[in-house]
């Protein structure tokens, strides 16, 4: 570069800054999404979580319900924005944006009125309510502390809506692994599902590169491992089976097969769904599972498949995610 005066150099820098700023602003202007018009709440009928023959799901980031008999048909959409939702016995849990970059766990009554809110770190991932509607659980992803640090960790919490006591993170629980006490800094939990007694639960625990199915005891603050390579368990209404995602060849990078574990025989049956399912499935009665699959462009659809390995997957609610029966 031939000698340039400092003034000329500064001129080039300013010109570059203006040019680059224009590029950025121009891109932002075209990329800026038109503000989403929140679907008007109410309408002829409002979204309610009261038990009934309806399915709850997220449509375009908003809580919605469809008739169980005609799930692809007319949809009732509420103004409430959630990234993940679940409900049982008239209690709902919603992972709701608090600001543009933070989320909170909101407990809802049957009319979608907020009864409690817990601020959580990270990004929404899983949410569950126990069959009685008393216990609520959530999982969020927490990013690494820098661009180059490794991976993500998860935080899983549980709230007793009757007493108000909350466990901010299961990481505080004592672990029994393969019959022996265990501790490690890298322990992560995700995907809680409650049993009928509202005390014991199942979840995924990851440590040392392995992912375990654990059975936990809230009152005792303990968990014990039951089986390897079981993620996002979901207990059937009769309490005999767990639907879960099983990493192909025990390697999550190869995707997950939606499977069912029989708790008395500990035998695993793969469902007829061969596409990779990265979801905590919901039981539609004792025979069928509902789960979210994404198209190539990232748009979600709710699908269903028989739990016993028979049949074929069927599309249930197009353009929706996070399905939950209203039981």
């Amino acid at each position, binding site marked *: *570069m031939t000698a*340039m005066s400092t003034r000329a*150099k500064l001129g*080039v*820098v300013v010109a*570059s*800054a203006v040019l*680059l*700023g224009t*590029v*950025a602003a121009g*891109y*932002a202007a075209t*990329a*800026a*999404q038109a*503000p989403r018009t929140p679907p008007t709440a109410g309408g002829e009928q409002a979204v309610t979580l009261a038990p009934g023959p309806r399915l709850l799901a997220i449509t375009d980031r908003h809580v919605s319900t469809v008739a169980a008999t005609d799930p692809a048909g007319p949809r009732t959409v509420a103004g409430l924005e959630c*990234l993940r939702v679940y409900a049982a016995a008239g209690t709902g849990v919603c992972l709701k944006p608090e600001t*543009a*970059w*933070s989320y909170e766990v909101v407990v809802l009554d049957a009319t979608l009125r907020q009864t409690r809110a817990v*601020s*959580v*770190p*990270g*990004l929404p*991932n899983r949410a569950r309510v126990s069959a009685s509607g008393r216990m609520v659980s959530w999982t969020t*992803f*927490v*990013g*690494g*502390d*820098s*661009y*180059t*640090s*490794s*991976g*993500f960790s998860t*935080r899983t919490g549980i709230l007793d809506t009757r007493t108000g006591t909350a466990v*901010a*993170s299961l990481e505080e629980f004592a672990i029994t692994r393969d019959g022996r006490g*265990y*501790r*490690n*800094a*890298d322990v992560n939990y995700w995907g809680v599902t409650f049993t009928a007694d509202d005390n014991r639960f199942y979840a995924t625990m*990851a440590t040392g590169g392995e992912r375990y199915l654990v059975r936990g005891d809230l009152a005792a603050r303990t968990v014990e491992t039951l089986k390897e390579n079981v993620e996002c368990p979901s207990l059937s209404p009769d309490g005999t089976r767990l639907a879960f995602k099983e990493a192909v060849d025990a*390697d*999550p*990078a190869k*995707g997950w097969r939606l499977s069912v574990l029989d708790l008395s025989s500990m035998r695993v049956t793969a469902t007829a769904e061969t596409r990779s399912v*990265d979801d905590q499935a919901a039981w539609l009665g004792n025979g069928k599972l509902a789960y979210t699959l*994404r198209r*190539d462009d*990232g748009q*979600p659809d709710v699908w269903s498949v028989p739990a016993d390995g028979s049949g074929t997957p069927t599309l249930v609610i197009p353009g929706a995610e996070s399905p939950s029966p209203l039981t």
Partner: protein
Amino acid sequence: MYLSTVSRPVADQPGSGPRRRRFTMVSGNVVALGTVSLITDVSAEMVAAVLPLYLVLGLHLSPVAFGVLDGVHTGATALLRVVGGFAADRFRRRKLIAGVGYALSAVAKLGLLLAGRSIPAIGAVIAVDRIGKGVRSAPRDALITLSTPPEALGRAFGVHRAMDSVGAFLGPLAAFAVLLVVGQSYDAVFVTSFCVATLAVVVLVLFVREQPDGEAANGEAANGETNDLKVSVREAFGLLRVGPARRLVLAAAMLGLATIGDGFVYLLLQRRMDLGLRWFPLLAVGTSLAYLLLAAPLGVLADRIGRLPVVIGGYTALGATYLLLAGPVDGWPLIALALTLYGAFYAATDGVLIALAGPVLPARLRTTGIALVQTGQALAYLVSSVLFGLAWQAWGPENAIRAAAVAVAGVLVGTLLLLVSPSRLTTRKVPR
């Protein structure tokens, strides 16, 4: 060239002047490099702040699968850093190699747009970004040493690192500003980040000089540069056979063994405090703040009392941080003390160690040498963080952190034995 040169520099250094005066006492090239680092860090931290949001909420990818890809590239980056350093020395194009590193990272920001939902593509883009970061730091630090008289290196690095941290501070704010304006368009953040990174490359091209005026002041550098023989691979390896240089690389690697990583430090702090999990990210902010404020003053101090004492002091602060994490102090005093000490550790070691290394390394091999020092540290840290994880598993967190504090003490003794010979301790002469 003796290590005592750098551990006990000329005493009559005015260094305690007001801030403005101190600032004017670093060369234009250092200010230019600092500006480039500042702008680049704004760009990098913009992306870092929204990347998890983008992957999980924008692309709906499973971070667990994403994490599997991570960590594979560390070894490759370490090797490339040394290769890049050697190329910079061999062709005497430190500015070019640094520029390539900055440009790679800039392009990676656009790559995020093109990668779409493909996990391997995103992994590759992040690898390119990391390679860019790995490749640029050694030639940049070499340029700083070659643009600064040896007795003022601590101040130069202090100013540079402080400017760098300012950028890291502004980055997330810039990202959130963009998101506020455009809504949920993460793409707009990446494009803005790319534009910011490109501006940094423009500043580098225009204002950073390969042959700084100040270089003549550095006698040895001038000698090196007039020698027309190109640096050979054999000569580069020979660097590790030269006593002082080898001792320095060894010491740097050994010091790297004392660090367990930010993740563990913050995790322990959070456990001790029962800190609301959502405040977790602020721990890193607190450390950066301490680093930012202390980098320049500690750099100046290093020029006055010697760099080795400041580095030793920095690792002492690290050991004290570890002890605090297992100690009796609790509550907010614990957080304030721990983060200040941890930030002081960074401020007293990151730049100062290179300031210590610079004059020991021959000018014609300086980039290679700095790359070796940085790579040695990075690899040692990789080992120590794994070891700490195992210690946690075996002994529990409190005992593991006590063991880490003991390791710091051991490493400090080893470093002193390596870098200070008894005769020099007593004579304290400065051969120049």
